[in-house]
């Protein structure tokens, strides 16, 4: 059941109504049941896995909390909890990959060691949330949760379940205590987020997907440089609008159910360097990796050389988190190298000297363009199915022939113009703030006009004729 399907909105309306007429505790129980039902719609067997994850981590949290009070055994319990969660993730997500790689190295026939393990939807997200919960309890950042329903809601809450944002216990649990009643502001903010998310997904991402898929799913071998640039640029746009659109819908839905999720994207393609990009892109993952991997590895505290190694390890594993393939690992390592290079450059150059406003703006624009180019080139490995295709695309980007394909795909230019218009309109989220503020007749008039316009845009330009799943659903 996808966020851009009619069925989801029927489901959501029913859940929202049920929560509205129930007392807070009952509403949470309804949300847990609804979340499991939502998850079970992919495959009912997976509900058991999710339930096992919830039960296991609920008790490990309690055990770690108890051990902390007793003053012994907490570290071992934490190690056990983290290892179990990583083991679960590793078995379902990486077992096949490692077996296939091993078979390939040992030149065994394909399928000899395969167990044909099904990859459960969302497992990367909820295991990371479970790990952060156990670590946060151990660190004393949050108390172990004693209410099972509250904990189950934290792990399974359907707006963030399948593709994030990755929620932190310290951000989520205090909201349960607040018993917030849905306000007019919530309703308006949530509705604006959802409509914006739907436009990002069905109008921008899906239209870019048609162009990107045409290239990566068949056009790679037969085309030259222009097609490679257009295909790569289209995917760069697709993945941003797809994931940011999903996040907007998730945040909007959560808000309409009385919860707030942190932002996951802050206009990342406007970042002026790669470190800034990672502070703006998939923020919930990058901060998770920082807090639960990079810093425990030593972060910046163990000398210059170790910082670079830590960056490579963190980003390499971050890449692998997306999927069990060498391409994802290569994509992560590529970003690790970019981050390390940026850090080395910054240390070598020191703080930039103050310059005039115009020079500063021009410099920032150039840096933004270079960063965008670097990020976009990285998407080739992310999107291409294998190394061979990755090399072919990269080769075509820089050394491909211009002769065979001098025409632009249909709708490419209008899409780029619409994208630029969108960036200008919604810069610094001003569209969101403008539409979410202002009471009275004038305030409401702008909401209804914008809502009508958005519906018209969705009606005419969304790609409901094709089914393009959210990219991050596969992770």
């Amino acid at each position, binding site marked *: 059941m996808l966020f851009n399907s009619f069925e989801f909105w029927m489901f959501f309306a029913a859940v929202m109504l049920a929560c509205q007429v129930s007392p807070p505790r009952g509403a949470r129980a309804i949300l847990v049941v609804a979340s499991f039902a939502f998850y079970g719609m992919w495959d009912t067997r997976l509900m058991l896995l999710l339930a096992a994850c919830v039960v296991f981590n609920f008790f490990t949290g309690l055990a770690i909390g108890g051990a902390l009070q007793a003053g012994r055994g907490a570290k071992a319990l934490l190690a056990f909890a983290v290892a179990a969660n990583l083991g679960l993730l590793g078995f379902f997500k990486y077992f096949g990959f490692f077996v296939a790689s091993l078979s390939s190295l040992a030149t065994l026939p394909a399928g000899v060691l395969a167990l044909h393990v099904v990859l459960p939807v969302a497992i990367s997200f909820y295991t990371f949330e479970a790990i952060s919960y156990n670590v946060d309890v151990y660190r004393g950042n949050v108390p172990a949760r004693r209410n099972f329903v509250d904990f189950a809601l934290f792990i399974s809450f359907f707006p963030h379940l399948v593709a994030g944002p990755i929620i932190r216990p310290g951000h989520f649990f205090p909201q349960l205590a607040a018993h917030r009643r*849905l306000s007019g502001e919530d*309703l308006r903010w949530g509705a604006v987020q959802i409509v914006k998310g739907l436009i990002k997904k069905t109008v921008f991402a899906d239209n870019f997907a048609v162009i990107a898929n045409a290239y990566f799913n068949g056009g790679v071998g037969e085309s030259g440089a222009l097609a490679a640039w257009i295909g790569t640029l289209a995917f760069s746009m697709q993945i941003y609008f797809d994931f940011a659109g999903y996040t907007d819908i998730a945040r909007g839905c959560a808000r309409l159910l009385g919860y707030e999720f942190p932002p996951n994207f802050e206009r990342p393609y406007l970042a002026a360097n790669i470190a800034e990009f990672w502070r703006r892109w998939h923020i919930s993952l990058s901060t998770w990796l920082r807090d639960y991997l990079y810093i425990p590895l030593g972060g910046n505290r163990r000398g210059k050389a170790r910082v670079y190694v830590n960056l490579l390890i963190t980003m390499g594993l971050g890449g692998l988190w997306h999927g069990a393939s060498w391409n994802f690992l290569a994509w992560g390592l590529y970003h690790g190298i970019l981050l390390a290079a940026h850090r080395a450059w910054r240390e070598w150059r020191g703080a930039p000297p103050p310059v005039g406003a115009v020079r500063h703006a021009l410099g920032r624009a150039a840096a933004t363009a270079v960063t965008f180019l670097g990020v976009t080139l990285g998407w080739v490995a992310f999107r291409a199915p294998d190394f061979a295709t990755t090399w072919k695309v990269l080769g075509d980007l820089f050394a491909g022939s211009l002769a065979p394909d001098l025409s632009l795909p249909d709708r490419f230019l209008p899409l780029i113009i619409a994208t630029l218009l969108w960036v200008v309109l919604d810069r610094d989220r001003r569209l969101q703030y403008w539409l979410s503020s202002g*009471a009275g007749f004038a305030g*409401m008039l702008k909401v*209804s006009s*914008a809502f009508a316009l958005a*519906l018209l845009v969705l*009606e*005419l330009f969304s790609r409901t*004729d094709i089914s393009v799943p959210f990219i991050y659903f596969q992770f």
Partner: protein
Amino acid sequence: MQPIRRRSVGLWLCVGLAVFLATDAAIFRSGWYFQWIEPLSALGQVRLALANARAAPQDRQAVLVIGDSRVGEGFSAPLATAAAERLGRPTAFVNAAVGGTNPRAWFYILRQILASDRRYAAVVMMAPSYHDNDPLALADALTDIAFVHPLLGWADVFDFPASFHPLAAKIEAMKAFVTEGSFYKTDVTNLLDDPQTRMQNVELWRDHGVEWLGAYAGRAPSLAGLRADDATGALSVPAGLLPLQTAGLAEYGKTLHAFAGRFPDNPGSAQYRRLWYGRIAALCAQAGVKLIVFRIPRGPLHSLVAADPQPTGTLADLQAGGRLALLSATQFDDLERPEYFFDYLHLNSGGRVLFSGQLAEAVLQRLPPAK
């Protein structure tokens, strides 16, 4: 700061929804956008068929011929009109065929045409068979919505969706009334890609479309040399065909062999035909127009199977009730030969010449001379 009340947000979202629906209705439901539709699209064909019907000459009796692409390819209105002239029965034949349509779409197209001031002496409608044996589930054909949504009125709001069987299809059909713009999605984006060319095309087709349609001579290639293996139904196809044509012929050969040229009757077909042929008959009766039905030449090798002269089921019943007239089932059997077809379904230009003249003659025999 003044708080935002929940009720007012809900109210204004409803206002926004109402504004959206009103805008959609003003642009699309009013028919304003329909005049700018891509002339060569499915809806463009419908528009051309309606324009063609409006342009029928007023100085003589007119006969409207309707059907799918088999009529579009196989029937030439100017050739039929010329044949009528030669027979001393001046009659203007008008071709309102639209490729990809079915009786449900023909009903709405005919309703639109017959509601105009132009009087027709007869509506001549194709039938793929004289039995209730349509192999496809026509009631579930979602493509019908794309062809007829501009022709629907509020009176059809329940009836039209109810004519589809699966719930998803009913919902899709209902969308034609609520968010009609969604059916123009591809057309709108194509228009925005190159508005100037679209406007020029629309103007050109508006000025010359009827003339171009009349001048169409059909497709010259033929399947001469096509043979079937009596034992297996496997076909030996002539060289130079496109893969799609070859695949279509292979499938045709298989079904011809399996069913000896006649698909088995099925209740879904009977139900569909009773509804839509019945409605078309009622529509013509109401408009005082004679309804004549003919069996379209079925395929390039049907001459090899036994003749199938006896109508059964819905069409036979309607004829018995005096609600329509069926041309003889064997009327065009001589045309069911490879040399008159360019693929497994459509007559070529040679077949078109013969069929148009023969149909005109057969129809005029059923019509009283014009006063």
